[in-house]
């Protein structure tokens, strides 16, 4: 956080009214706290949504005893887990083991610094906001690998290696998908991107949305790409040896990342805080919840892919499609810079349908082959 303060200080003057009381640092601290509290509340809410939603999808009720509708369930979880014993395995690399949850958890919160909750309502309106998001989001992977290495456990190590492999591969299609959006919006600032969305970019960039959604899910290891903590294979994956507070950090990280990716998707493709009638922040939260709900949905339904299939999906399916998407977008911007967006919508949808059909004919996952 402190690292970014110099960046923030530049952006700060443009986003906050100058007549606020107190000095610059006070504002910075206040807004940071607000954002963190907001993000953590959202994370708690998401844990509740996932457990309740998953419960309903699995024909049962889900937690409903702790508080009204089980709303206090995440609070109980957090309280309990924070006060549990903290175990460091005898053969663990103590410093790495200790540091890993912090390194993994902090970036997930840092992403929120540039996410707009309303017009200009963000901690730092960076000109390179989306670049910042991409850069920060991949830091979590280091924390995960540290966890895997530091635990001195084979399951953890396998999980961590899978995690790194997936992050490295999926970064590319994700960035290419973002590039399409940046081309259309003409800016890297998330606020500008939202402002440019007179119609949500999901319509203009349907393929980009799909690629980003799949890639994003893979990058934060949501099912069906949850290979690094694959329950049925690696017990608990990279956090097998973690307990108490440190495990709580990983547990929260999982959801904080999901919230972050949902927020980025909502900002880039669903029009962010824009919407009629309701206040902007509510629109934003609703969109985030909608995206997250789709993630929960896929998690409860789909089986998990294998590690080589995961790689194959990234390199053989998402990567070429992302490149084509970028080229097509670039051509469209060059040739019809002032074209009515409503004309491009059916064209892009048609291109997406065509490409996906083509690729699904050309390329099949697995079926007995080991891809890598």
């Amino acid at each position, binding site marked *: 956080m402190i690292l970014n303060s110099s960046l923030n200080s530049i952006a700060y003057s443009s986003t906050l009214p100058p007549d606020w009381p107190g000095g610059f640092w006070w504002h910075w601290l206040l807004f940071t706290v607000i954002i963190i509290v907001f993000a953590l509340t959202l994370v708690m809410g998401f844990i509740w949504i996932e457990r309740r939603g998953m419960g309903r999808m699995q024909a049962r009720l889900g937690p409903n005893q702790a508080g009204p509708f089980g709303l206090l369930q995440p609070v*109980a*979880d957090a309280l309990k887990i924070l006060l549990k014993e903290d175990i460091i395995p005898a053969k663990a690399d103590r410093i790495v083991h200790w540091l890993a949850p912090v390194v993994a958890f902090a970036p997930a919160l840092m992403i929120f610094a540039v996410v707009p909750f309303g017009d200009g309502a963000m901690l730092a309106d960076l000109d390179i906001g989306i670049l910042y998001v991409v850069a920060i989001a991949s830091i979590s992977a280091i924390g995960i690998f540290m966890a895997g290495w530091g635990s001195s456990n084979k399951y953890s190590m396998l999980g961590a290696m899978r995690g790194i492999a997936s992050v490295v591969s999926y970064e590319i299609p994700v960035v290419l998908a973002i590039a399409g959006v940046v081309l259309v919006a003409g800016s890297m600032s998330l606020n500008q991107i939202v402002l440019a969305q007179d119609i949500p970019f999901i319509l203009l960039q349907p393929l980009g949305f799909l690629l980003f959604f799949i890639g994003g899910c893979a990058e934060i290891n949501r099912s069906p790409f949850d290979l690094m903590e694959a329950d049925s294979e690696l017990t608990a994956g990279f956090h097998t040896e973690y307990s108490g507070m440190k495990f709580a950090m990983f547990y929260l990280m999982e959801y904080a990342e999901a919230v972050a990716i949902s927020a980025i998707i909502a900002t880039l493709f669903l029009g962010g805080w824009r919407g009629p009638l309701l206040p902007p922040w509510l629109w934003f939260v609703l969109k985030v919840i909608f995206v997250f709900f789709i993630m929960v949905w896929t998690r409860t339904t789909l089986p998990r892919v294998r590690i080589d299939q995961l790689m194959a999906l990234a390199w053989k399916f998402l990567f070429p499609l992302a490149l084509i998407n970028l080229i097509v977008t670039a051509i469209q911007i060059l040739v019809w810079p002032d074209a009515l967006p409503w004309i491009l919508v059916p064209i892009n949808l048609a291109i997406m349908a065509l490409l996906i059909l083509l690729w699904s004919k050309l390329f099949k996952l697995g079926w007995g082959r080991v891809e890598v």
Partner: protein
Amino acid sequence: MEVAREHIYSDADLDRVEGNQIEALKAHSQQPFPDPDEWLDEKLERNILLITVDAALNWARRSSLWPAICFPACCAFELIAANASRFDLSRFGMEILRASPRQADLMITAGTLTWKMAPQVRRIYDQMAEPKWVIAMGACAISGGIFTSSYSVVPGYNRIIPIDVYVPGCPPRPEALIYGIRMLHSKIARRSLGTEAK
């Protein structure tokens, strides 16, 4: 980077080591552990502050009991049935079965324990982080049940680990298990930080 290589056992060595562990544990656990219930009768040193904290903490602990995976035998299916749609342990926030014992609070010992398995169960119990509880589910877990006279069966989990709640039945019905869990809830509700610290 040089990685310190440990001695690699051959398969035969591994088997022998395992056998030695089992024999050692067997020799060591001829008497059952006393049930850890003394603190219930103690005159608790409580003060106003601790009572409030205790209440909040105990509520959190009993609302989010995550079971560890320890499903040796038949009772496991009643446990899963209790977890499934009809009986639905997820209502109590228990649907998260932690595969890693480090993150679990509750061990439901669903099934017969053999001497070969005993060191593993002891190890899982040791790996669980405090505070932790154990429910002995079913006749085999309590006393060895139908298999007590067998040469390889441990007569009750309490030879190996201390047990908090015993749920009889062979296997216990899910309702019985849920009743046992509620008993454990009430047991947790009477914990106190004041005594815990000692």
